[in-house]
């Protein structure tokens, strides 16, 4: 009996020990994060302006917006400049020159003038001879606010012309937010203030942020539509600014109308009076990224998720354009599920849709309710221009051209390799 009692006491004492241990036990965690640290390389603004001209061709690194003019393709290399590609033989395009424009992301062409962003400046290039492009004029502070690499800001009299990239490993406790480490480090490298802007047209892609209708250049920033008079092509003058909701992404012209894609919806403006756009309504959708194109009956909007695009929606929405009352929401006619749709282009009944890693998809859209798939090309497609029986596609790894004169036999004409580098 005594033994049993002793045993019971010992037993209970033993199994009560964890209460005492409780304060000693810990879950520890160490975080090892691998980053690329980008360090800016600066140059004086005047020095860089002087160098904005045709230079020897360079390898395409980060293809962005595209623009076709005659036999030439102007291909933006994000933040580096514009490649001039001789496309007189579409089966064998030649990269003939490179115009170095740091901070360039967008372009548009009218006649012999090419308009491009050069950080915060709008520059005008004379492209009458595409092999000897020259800077015609520049307009400072055209794009006063431009987010750049997680908010990085350059010095006022200098601009960033390149970045050096360094792999870095950071060890920290797990509860230290890892993103912050990168930003702080980059801000420590920073010395001052300044930076700028945004994209293309003519036969431009659906991801464009610049577009031209007659004598006006329309550009969109994160929350505004800027209007510039280019009736005197060499000297653009600012005429008006229309404030828009935040999250503006793309602009597309259709006749005398503008279709503006944003992360929360599509806005439609009548620009019959070029400097005074009149709202024709909007179509709201879940928060995602959404390039838009339109024809005379419908607007085609792709919604995608992932990366900086929030939400989980990946689809093609087709919207009725009959309603032109800004107080009446535009009507969604049909939705087609997609994988991760980006840019799109349309010519006649053919719709070209860049569906991310699912490739370039070509549909017959003569019946918008029942899209007829014609062809899928395997690639990680980003943007497309469908123009004059030629589709020009920017994708990871290359700039592709397709001939769709025979829609039952859409075929690849050429590919210019893009060796993506950070």
């Amino acid at each position, binding site marked *: 009996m005594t033994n*049993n009692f002793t*045993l*019971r006491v010992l*037993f*209970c004492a*033993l*199994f*009560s*020990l*964890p*209460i005492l*241990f*409780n304060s000693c*036990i*810990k*879950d*520890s*965690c*160490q*975080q*090892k*994060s*691998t*980053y*690329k640290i*980008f360090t800016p390389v600066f140059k004086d603004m005047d020095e860089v302006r002087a160098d904005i001209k045709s230079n020897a061709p360079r390898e395409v690194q*980060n*293809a*962005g917006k595209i623009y076709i003019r005659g036999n030439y393709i102007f291909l933006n290399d*994000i*933040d580096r400049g514009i490649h001039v590609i001789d496309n007189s033989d579409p089966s064998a395009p030649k990269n003939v020159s490179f115009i170095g424009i740091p901070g360039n*992301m967008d372009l548009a062409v009218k006649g012999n003038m090419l308009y491009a962003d050069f950080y915060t400046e709008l520059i005008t290039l004379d492209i009458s001879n595409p092999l000897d492009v020259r800077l015609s004029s520049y307009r400072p502070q055209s794009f006063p606010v431009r*987010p750049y*690499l*997680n908010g990085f800001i350059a010095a006022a009299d200098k601009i960033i012309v390149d970045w050096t990239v360094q792999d870095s490993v950071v060890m920290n406790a*797990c509860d230290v937010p*890892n*993103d912050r480490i*990168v930003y702080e480090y980059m801000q420590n490298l920073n010395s001052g203030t300044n930076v700028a802007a945004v*994209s293309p047209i003519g036969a431009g892609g659906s*991801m464009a942020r610049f577009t031209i209708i007659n004598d006006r250049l329309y550009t969109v920033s994160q929350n505004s539509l800027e209007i510039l008079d280019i009736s005197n092509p060499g000297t653009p003058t600012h005429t008006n600014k229309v404030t828009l909701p935040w999250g503006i992404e793309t602009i597309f012209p259709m006749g005398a109308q503008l279709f503006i894609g944003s992360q929360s919806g599509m806005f439609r403006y009548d620009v019959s009076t070029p400097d005074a756009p009149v709202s024709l309504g909007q179509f709201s959708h879940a928060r995602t990224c959404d390039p838009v194109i339109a024809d005379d009956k419908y607007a085609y909007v792709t919604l995608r*998720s*992932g*990366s*900086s695009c*929030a*939400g*989980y929606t990946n689809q093609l929405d087709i919207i009725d354009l009959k309603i032109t009352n800004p107080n009446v929401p535009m009507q969604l006619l049909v939705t087609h599920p997609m994988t991760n749709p980006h840019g799109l282009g349309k010519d006649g009944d053919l719709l070209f849709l860049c569906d991310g890693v699912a490739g370039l998809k070509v549909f017959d859209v003569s019946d918008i309710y029942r899209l007829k798939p014609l062809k899928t090309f395997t690639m*990680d*497609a*980003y943007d497309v221009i469908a123009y004059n029986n030629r589709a020009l596609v*920017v*994708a*990871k790894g290359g700039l592709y051209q397709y001939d769709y004169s025979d829609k039952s036999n859409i075929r690849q004409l050429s590919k210019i390799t*893009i060796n*993506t580098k*950070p």
Partner: protein
Amino acid sequence: MRFILIILIACPLAGLAQSSPAPTGWKTNITAGEAFGESMPGLVLQAGGGFRFRNFYAGAGAGYDKYKFESYPVFADFRFFPVKVPNLFIYGQGGYSLPNGSKKGTDDSYLDIYDISGGLYSDIGVGYNLMLKKKQALALSLGYSLKKVSVERYGYTCLYCSGPSAFERTTSIYNYNLRRIMLKMLYEITW
């Protein structure tokens, strides 16, 4: 709370000890318990078998461990029974904790995918055998356990915010050392 309940259940069982279990032979066992640490307590289930020869037992087992990250430990299992107190034993388990698969993150601000990989699993402690019948025993044990888990996360930082190569992948590896107190109840049959 669960911990206190286990103690309340375990204490009266101490009176069941009548004699030491069969000292030699093949044994199989199942275990249920709880891991207590800095995080929420987690259920522990194990099954195993082995051979006891005199004062030594060697075997192997596998189980389920819900503490912080669900995992499936596989381990070697050793026990030593001191001669003077044959019902008491010191045990040690050592092995590898297999992760419960990889999971895709749900952070909607950017793509966030992570892989969970396993790591060392160990548990050392003391236990006490309580005979139920001739060849069946119930044991209670208390131990100190370490479970290592590695979580690799891939984030995407908006680099150019435009173009086909707009996002730069960053990788973060989180190495967790989870130190817990293990309170277990083991039912064992001698064959």
